[in-house]
């Protein structure tokens, strides 16, 4: 690990600690309105000021960090699991199953990711409770974000399939399911980790885009995307630059994830 990667990992650990300790650190509940001080600047009572509805910005940022940083890895885990299952099965079994999986993957990859998400989101009710909207947004990403990983895992499985140890295991009478679970999957573990790490920043950015467009996490539940919606109001942003903190935190975390990512040889 290079010094830069160590620094990135430290920042990520600190952000995760902030997320875990959010309940203790928050000065007020994220939805509580201080109606006498809307759009207030930083003060001792509100360290990052308040938003247009008088809600404490620091509390919303801490809870938003929790929502984004807890659910993006969860969605990444789901998509990596789907990709691992489909990709390794396609690469291992080959034939028509592999052709179908790769054709579906190609079709999904050729479609811009946001168009696909918007289509699926449009099929679901819009006026859902905030907590459900969080689950819907990240579940949708997890269920639809596996395509890019499938190709990589399938290609790697094909490589493992031709190896000597697998030939030996097969000649010893190992069943295909056991071959896949005990011999192929453990050899692909570094690749699964890499795909998992790659997906996290992608899902964080996608949630931000969806929430800014009003199709992600619903108010009053905070998330990084929700907090960025206030950016449209540039005059108040200029008056209170502390509102830039969610964007700065998002950019730093996504950059850290990119820096910590395993080397290109593993991911490609």
């Amino acid at each position, binding site marked *: 690990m290079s010094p830069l990667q160590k620094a990135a990992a430290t920042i990520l650990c600190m952000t995760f600690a902030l997320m875990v300790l959010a309940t203790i650190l928050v000065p007020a509940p994220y939805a509580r309105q201080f109606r006498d001080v809307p759009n207030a600047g930083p003060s001792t009572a509100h360290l990052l000021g308040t938003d247009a509805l008088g809600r404490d910005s620091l509390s919303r940022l801490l809870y938003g960090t929790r929502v984004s940083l807890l659910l993006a890895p969860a969605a990444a885990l789901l998509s990596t699991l789907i990709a691992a299952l489909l990709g390794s099965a396609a690469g291992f079994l080959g034939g028509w199953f592999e052709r179908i999986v790769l054709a579906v993957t190609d*079709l999904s990859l*050729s479609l*811009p990711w946001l*168009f696909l998400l918007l*289509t699926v989101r449009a099929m679901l009710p*819009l006026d859902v409770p905030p907590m459900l909207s969080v689950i819907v947004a990240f579940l949708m990403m997890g269920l639809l974000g596996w395509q890019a990983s499938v190709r990589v895992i399938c290609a790697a499985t094909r490589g493992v399939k031709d190896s000597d140890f697998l030939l030996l295991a097969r000649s010893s009478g190992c069943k295909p399911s056991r071959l896949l679970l005990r011999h192929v999957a453990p050899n692909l573990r570094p690749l699964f980790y890499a795909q998992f790490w790659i997906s996290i920043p992608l899902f964080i950015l996608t949630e931000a885009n969806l929430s*800014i467009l009003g*199709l992600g996490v619903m108010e009053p539940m905070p998330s990084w995307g929700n907090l960025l919606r206030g*950016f449209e109001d540039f005059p108040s942003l200029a008056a209170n630059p502390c509102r830039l903190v969610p964007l700065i935190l998002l950019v730093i975390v996504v950059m850290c994830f990119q820096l910590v990512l395993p080397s290109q040889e593993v991911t490609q």
Partner: protein
Amino acid sequence: MIKEEKAAKLFRHALRRLLFLFCLGIGGALLSATLVRFAPGYGVQERELDPRWSAQSVEALRQKQVLREGLASFYFHYLSALAHGDLGESDSLKRPVGELLRQRLPTTGKSVVRGLGFAWLAAALLASLGLASRGWLYEASSTAFSSLLLSLPSAVVAMLAVHLRTPVFCAIGVVVFPRLHRYIRSLLVRSYDQPYVLAARARGLGSGAIFWRHVLPVAAPPLLALFGVSFAIAFGAAIPIEALCDSPGLGQLAWQAALSRDLPLIVNVTLVVCLVMLAANSLADLAGSTLAGSTQ
């Protein structure tokens, strides 16, 4: 003889791609029809509740719906209408989807093509300059700059574009640029590190000749493949950018359709975008195969 064989092979490849596109088009249309058919609220006509409609008119509406109630009948009606260029009617805008697409596609097409031109030019220029200088400071600063852009959500780029009053295509270019820059840079570095490039340099060949004769022909097929992928990235970025910059394109239309749960519209917009993407990817793939064949 070899040339004829190559041409025949290429023709077969093109034909296969065309057939694949056609099958995917049919499959995509059926999938779209299924999504519309099974979406919550399908078949419920708001007009049935309008007191201004007479009983006969309401009955006629219901009869029209009954005709399409069976799944096979629904698919038949959908595909036959599609064959005549009828993509249905938008629930929220009450206008034919085909007409909306014809109006919006040129706006998005123009923004995407210009944005891609801007992104490709900037990415190729910065990557080439980085290779020419080979200085760590330039490398570090250009990598940090593209990483910073890569970490920005496209919706934030759109908001900045609104604030700075820059055209939509610039915002699309800014979103696509870092992805291209990273790939082009690593591709050029790999190509320049090849032994035959070293040998050419040792023989005293000029940098221009090395680039045109030894680097570009090898790097061209993956670059063409990247061109197809960059189209998908640009179209994806067009949604938040057009929505927030108030540009009347396909991205804005898709966003409005999603917000108003207008399934016939969003599904058909997605289908059209998917077909455009597949055509662009197939063209890039064919051009790449031709180039790879000629290089070999």
